């Protein structure tokens, strides 16, 4: 009975963690769908997590209110941030979001209310699998719906070619803002859930490496379809854990302190980005299409990895 309990407990932790990572990857897939390379979602997650945790501990809010509050807080911060930086292109936007992420992390480190480097301990564990599952279902439905809506088509148009999109009457800035804020909202939600899952949050959880992790989940999964987040996050969360357990069983002392998780994640990401640029979902979609009637127009589906049209790629950095 004990062994079963242990097994359940270990695996439920992993499952919950995977669920949250999927949620995070989904949160990034929206900005990515209009070519916004945002590394700010880790910071938004942090904002959501801290807000939710503080409301639970200090203000005794009920759990169901705390989560949307955290998400809303993140979204509210995204608005004034997005206004100036969303007009930056490509790698400049990425760097700006990195800068923002660092500012948030340092604020969390320095402010009294956020507990400094130790963060906020002893957050009551209120998250269970069904809340995460519910959040995933809700967000997936939302994204599925958006993909098929006018909004989604506008995003796709912007991703293909901003200039053409705006000449078609699409308000590019407004759409980018919607994508950015929506992504922040979902990231904040994930933050609130995560805080009540891991009992403890600290600034280090929401820094640059977290942002990179999220980006990698989204890209490995592929942004061609909204469900791309699932295989990406799942693979990258579970595989290193399995490998670590495997290495543990074989007691490979000679491996020393190699950080397997980092190396494996890096290798998978590298292989995917070079050989399967569409990510897992993009590649699956391609295979299915190829095995189908062989029909469909070339270039039918928007490219899975955000791809500025060739010409704009040259100018995107200037």
């Amino acid at each position, binding site marked *: 009975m004990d062994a079963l309990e242990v097994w359940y407990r270990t695996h439920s932790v992993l499952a919950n963690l995977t669920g949250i990572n999927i949620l995070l990857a989904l949160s990034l897939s929206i900005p990515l769908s209009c070519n916004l390379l945002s590394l700010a979602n880790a910071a938004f997650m942090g904002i959501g997590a801290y807000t939710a945790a503080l409301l639970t501990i200090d203000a005794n809010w009920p759990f169901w209110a705390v989560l949307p509050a955290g998400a809303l807080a993140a979204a509210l911060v995204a608005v004034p941030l997005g206004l100036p930086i969303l007009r930056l292109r490509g790698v400049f936007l990425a760097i700006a979001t990195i800068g923002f992420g660092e500012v948030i992390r*340092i604020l969390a480190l320095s402010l009294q209310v956020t507990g400094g480097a130790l963060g906020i301990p002893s957050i009551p564990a209120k998250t269970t699998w069904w809340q995460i599952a519910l959040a995933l279902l809700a967000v997936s439905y939302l994204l599925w719906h958006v993909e098929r809506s006018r909004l989604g088509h506008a995003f796709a148009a912007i991703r293909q070619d901003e200039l053409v999109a705006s000449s078609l009457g699409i308000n590019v800035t407004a759409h980018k803002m919607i994508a950015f804020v929506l992504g922040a909202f979902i990231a904040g939600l994930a933050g609130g859930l995560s805080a009540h899952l891991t009992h403890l949050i600290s600034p280090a959880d929401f820094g*640059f490496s977290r942002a990179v992790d999220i*980006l990698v989940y989204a890209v490995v999964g592929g942004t061609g379809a909204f469900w791309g987040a699932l295989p990406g996050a799942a693979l990258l969360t579970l595989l290193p854990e399995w490998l670590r357990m495997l290495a543990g069983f074989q007691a490979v002392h000679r491996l020393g302190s190699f950080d397997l998780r980092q190396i494996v994640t*890096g290798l998978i990401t*590298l292989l995917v*980005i*070079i050989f399967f640029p569409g990510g897992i979902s993009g590649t699956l979609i391609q295979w299915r299409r190829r095995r189908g009637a062989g029909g469909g127009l070339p270039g039918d589906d928007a490219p899975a990895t955000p791809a500025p049209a060739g010409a704009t*790629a040259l100018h995107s*950095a200037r």
Partner: protein
Amino acid sequence: MLPQQVADGIVQGAVYALFAVGYALIFGLLDVLNLAHAAVLLWGALLAWWLLALLHLPLAAVFVLVVLACGSLGLALNRLAFAPLRRQASNSLRPLIAGLALAAILEGLARGAFGSARHAYPPTALVAGSSQLGTVRIDWVQLIVPAVALALLLVLRRLITSTRYGRAIRAIAENPRAAALLGVNVDTTIAWTFFLASALGGAAGVLYGLSTGGAVFSGGEPLQLRGLAIIVLGGMGSISGAVLGGFALGLLEAFSATLLAAQYRDVVPFAVLLLVLLLRPSGIGKRRAARGAW
């Protein structure tokens, strides 16, 4: 104590400048941000420690070896990831992610090879001395680091302005196709640029280790992010901008150490970064033509 700040700032700035130049070289040539660059610096710092502390080699030899090793690492990175992606004519996102992936792999390997603890450089006669100049105490390290950095930067400048290789990269930066038509071997030139940029990164790693007394893993990320802040400040593809930006940031940080509380000091580079991006994204240098080495 004003002069002390200036001295600290110059030392710090020299490391930053050398490091940022590596980004600028590759970005100016390829429009690609090599996010594995900081990992190369980390390897440089760690390799230097290993050579100094375990093999007891003299500092000059260590420097040369590390520079060559890191340069070769850069060649390998190009071969493994950046060149294939170039051949596939990919968008700007993929090389960025490839860089991040390579950085993760390099860092994981470094942790395995060296262990996560801080590795103090053994004090050698050259490095540990100091002299008193009026009110300022100058460690010899504080003289060597900027001197070496400046020497390397001058060599770089010579390389770019007066050699065939330099003309080649300037040509490619302007227009790769035209350069190819004119007989420039684009792929080889790009490969050598990766070598050069990473060699400078390795040099920066050694100097970083010397100036902080050792190599530590937690130094990698802040340096990476500062490097980005610097090249934005200086103008993305501009080498002279990277140098100026590096020294500027070094001095800025040194002075803000006295004005701001310790933890807020870290906000400085990022606040500057955001300001520059919002007000003058092209950087503090003159608005120059789309690409140009200097």
